[in-house]
């Protein structure tokens, strides 16, 4: 695997995991993801608008009740460092007709987030682990589930 340009594999920051969030709609959920990314110092406020813009062009719903809101190519300027947040909405959010209970917000200007996303992809292919992610009530459980398995050859 390649950790280019000082972008070391990213651990999931416990401060960026919220397991009992509620959101009125997609925009509210995305704004909350952006706010968490801003709180951990990963992005400027302008990134949130880019996340909303990206969502309007193509839904970031990826299946199994999970959406992965993130910005646009041009909004990389607003990213200070790679980061991921996980917000769980136990009551669900109507995501353009899909029922979303987990949002994985992404801020990236390098490759630090690739292993976490690779692990998320594996979870989405495994209905049991996807169900466990949707049901996780503790941040530790989320972090454990997204722990890279160590054999991913991401580039």
């Amino acid at each position, binding site marked *: 695997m390649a950790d280019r340009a000082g972008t070391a594999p990213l651990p999931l920051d416990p401060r960026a995991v919220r397991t009992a969030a509620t959101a009125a709609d997609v925009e509210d959920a995305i704004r909350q993801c952006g706010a968490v990314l801003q709180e951990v110092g990963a992005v400027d406020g302008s990134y949130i608008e880019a996340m909303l813009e990206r969502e309007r062009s193509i839904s970031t719903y990826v299946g199994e009740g999970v959406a*992965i809101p*993130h910005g646009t190519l041009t909004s990389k300027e607003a990213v200070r460092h790679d980061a991921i947040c996980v917000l769980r909405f136990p009551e669900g959010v109507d995501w353009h007709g899909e029922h979303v209970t987990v949002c994985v917000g992404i801020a990236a200007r390098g490759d630090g987030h690739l292993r976490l996303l690779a692990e998320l*992809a594996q979870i989405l292919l495994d209905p049991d682990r996807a169900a466990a992610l949707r049901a996780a009530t503790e941040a530790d459980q989320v972090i454990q589930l997204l722990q890279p398995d160590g054999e991913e050859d991401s580039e």
Partner: protein
Amino acid sequence: MPSIEGKDVRKLIVACDAGMGSSVMLASTLRKQLKGTPVSVEHTPVNSIPGDADVIVCHTGLAGRARASAPGVVLVPFQVFIGDPAVTRVVTAIKNGGTIDG
């Protein structure tokens, strides 16, 4: 419409708008599925698809931009990021033989 035999594919590109989200996940999944084949999988923004790409997969919403960015290359649009039948057909054609139309 261009087409390519699965056995002739060497470089598979997953194109995305920002190259930071869904394309990353799909590329890592494809890399695992194509382990042991001579195919390399890369994810790139839709406006910087490398010239030696053999097959491009991208979301249907980006297909127009991908087509303009890499004319003449086999392009397979998909709807679902994980488990889309169109992507599964590409993997099957590479591993078991068959034609990929795009």
